């Protein structure tokens, strides 16, 4: 036990003392913060310049009203549309749009008032948010005209047309709080961090094993202690370094959450709730993911002689992790669907997808417990197989073993 600790201690210190570790640990939270805040800031500011548009009225009497309605449309207190006044034909407007002097124009057909139809011509027709504003302006104009036709006095019309503002409020166990895109961003960011850290520390185990094998230190070591102790010590030591890094991050997240609960919202920043459950599962699912994948990485490292050789074997091992990431939009959209539940209970996917579910809406406790148990059982199996491959492979030099050969190691060692 003391020797296992010595191995783990060496691995831990070796990693923690490196510059890369310091760099990654400090940079991580900064990146995290940037990832969470910047998209939100960019989202709200990116629409930037107001659109230059014109109105082409075939109905005859709506142009002035619509132009006023368009000018009224605001985004965060800024007008979204600059109207190009004056009459024009369809041909000249189209030419102007093509030449870029105009962003687009709204065409009101002659039957607009009767059939509630209008057309928007523009170079860019995928700016959904702007189109929604145009839609609203046309609608206001039409309704106002109909109301006044029905005898409603002009003064009341504006009042009746007051647009709706839909706020989204997220309800959690700890209370309700306004939430725009924060939760989504936080969930995705944290999941991506889990993904990269599991990969990164797994890779660290891989290159550590290859270095040991390549420099032949391993022969001295296995003449002193059983390979199982070397294997376990290595996984624990490197994992300890990873955990340290993650705890630093978790702590900064917790501080961020503390800040968000207080000043953040009033300062206009879009910060989601960071719950203890979220922080706890971040650590737990990192550990599960790490041990699952690092054990496989260690076995691969033992079976090969160089990093290059390892790449071919790494690919099949990583496939589940990559697949897990690909499913994240579906899981985030409906975290309680049957698909999400099933996927999050598949052990190689659990570390990412169960965590993602927890970050969106806490799933039933039994599902969390079941997923952890299943993953632990899988880890036990993987470690058993991997340690056998490791034991044989670590002293094998020369040609890279074939897959059947590796299977033979597992059976016979």
């Amino acid at each position, binding site marked *: 036990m*003391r*020797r296992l600790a*010595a*191995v783990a201690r*060496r691995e831990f210190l070796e990693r923690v003392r490196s510059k890369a570790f310091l760099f990654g640990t400090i940079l991580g939270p900064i990146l995290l913060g940037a990832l969470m805040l910047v998209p939100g800031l960019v989202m709200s500011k990116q629409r930037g310049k107001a659109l230059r548009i014109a109105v082409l009225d075939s109905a005859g009497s709506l142009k002035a009203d619509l132009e006023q309605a368009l000018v009224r449309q605001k985004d965060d207190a800024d007008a979204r549309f600059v109207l190009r006044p004056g009459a024009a034909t369809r041909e000249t407007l189209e030419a102007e749009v093509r030449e870029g002097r105009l962003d687009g124009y709204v065409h009101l057909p002659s039957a607009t008032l009767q059939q509630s139809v209008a057309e928007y011509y523009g170079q860019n027709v995928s700016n959904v948010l702007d189109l929604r504003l145009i839609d609203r302006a046309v609608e206001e104009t039409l309704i106002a005209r109909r109301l006044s036709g029905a005898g409603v006095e002009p003064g009341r019309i504006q009042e009746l047309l007051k647009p709706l503002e839909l706020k989204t409020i997220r309800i959690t166990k700890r209370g309700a709080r306004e939430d725009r895109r924060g939760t989504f961003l936080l969930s995705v960011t944290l999941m991506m961090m889990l993904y990269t850290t599991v990969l990164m520390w797994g890779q660290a185990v891989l290159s550590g094993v290859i270095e040991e094998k390549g420099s*032949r*230190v*391993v022969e*001295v070591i296995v003449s002193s202690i059983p390979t199982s102790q070397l294997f376990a010590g290595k996984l624990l030591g490197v994992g300890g370094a990873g955990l340290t890094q993650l705890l630093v991050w978790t702590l900064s997240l917790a501080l961020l959450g503390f800040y968000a609960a207080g000043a953040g919202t009033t300062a206009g920043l879009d910060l989601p709730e960071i719950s203890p459950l979220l922080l706890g599962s971040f650590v737990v699912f990192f550990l599960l993911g790490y041990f699952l994948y690092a054990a496989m990485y260690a076995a691969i490292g033992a079976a090969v002689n160089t990093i290059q050789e390892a790449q071919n074997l790494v690919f099949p091992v990583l496939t589940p992790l990559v697949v897990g990431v690909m499913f994240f939009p579906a899981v985030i959209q409906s975290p309680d669907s049957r698909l999400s539940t099933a996927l999050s209970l598949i052990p190689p996917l659990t570390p990412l997808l169960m965590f993602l579910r927890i970050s969106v809406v806490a799933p039933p406790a039994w599902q969390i417990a079941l997923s952890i148990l299943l993953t632990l059982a899988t880890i036990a199996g993987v470690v058993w197989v991997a340690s056998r491959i490791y034991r044989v492979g670590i002293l094998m030099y020369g040609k890279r073993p074939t897959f059947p050969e590796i299977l033979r190691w597992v059976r016979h060692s």
Partner: protein
Amino acid sequence: MRISDVSKAYAGLVAVRELSLGVARGSVFGLLGPNGAGKTTTLRMVMGIIGPDSGVIEVLGRPAGGSARDRIGYMPEERGLYPRMLLEEQLLFLAELKGTPRPEAARRLPAWLERLGLSGWGRRKVNELSKGMQQKAQFIASVLHEPEVLILDEPMSGLDPVGANLMRDVLLELSRRGKTLILSSHQMETVERLCDSIALINRGVKLLDGSVADVKRRHGRNSVVLAFEGDGAFLGSLPGVRRISDSGRYVEIQLTEGTDPQGLLREAAARLRVSRFELVEPSLHDIFIERVTGDADGASA
């Protein structure tokens, strides 16, 4: 240490075949053989790094690879240290793996660094050390936990003459303190100076073993060193001459059993100017060459 009827094969290739050896406590034992004879495989099995396919290995009265291995020091043929780790850290770590508490190892370390001329290098990374220094560092790694048995695979390779002398002195010192030394080598001079007993193996099979004196006696006292001026080509065709090895300034002549060296002296004196004539034991070097080439001839015949 006792090895009984041990065999080991790799993917159908026999590395060691029904090998039996015994090494007495406190002695210095040399395991000799040409490259690929199975020396390293044998030592690895003794260390419990790999298991034999059949047979039994006991070290210090216990099965190989078990609890005895803390009392054994091992320097593998392929030297290996963590390249980017500080020398000091590394040696303490390796001693810790042998069950020596860190403070204890740290207390012993300076004396060993000093003894092997590595003082002041403890805080350097291993990859900053020269090859000879790494070799000495590897040696310290094998003795820092104060083992009773020391197994050294090619201890002299990679050392310059000064380093080799130093190493030999240190080994003799350890032997005098009662440690059992087991070394593999094909540097016969080293073996001859250090070892009490030897075994010669070739292609996984033991060719001979016993004390150095015994082995020499068995290979006859009938060896003559002859230095002369003139054309000595006829010497090989004289009756009773089994083998001649030419060392340039002199030749070593092995006579068949029962041949009287005096006859050879008379013949030589009659036809050459003899400046030296000496009855000698055959060197291990000659025995090695003779047995190994003889073995190869026997096998190919």
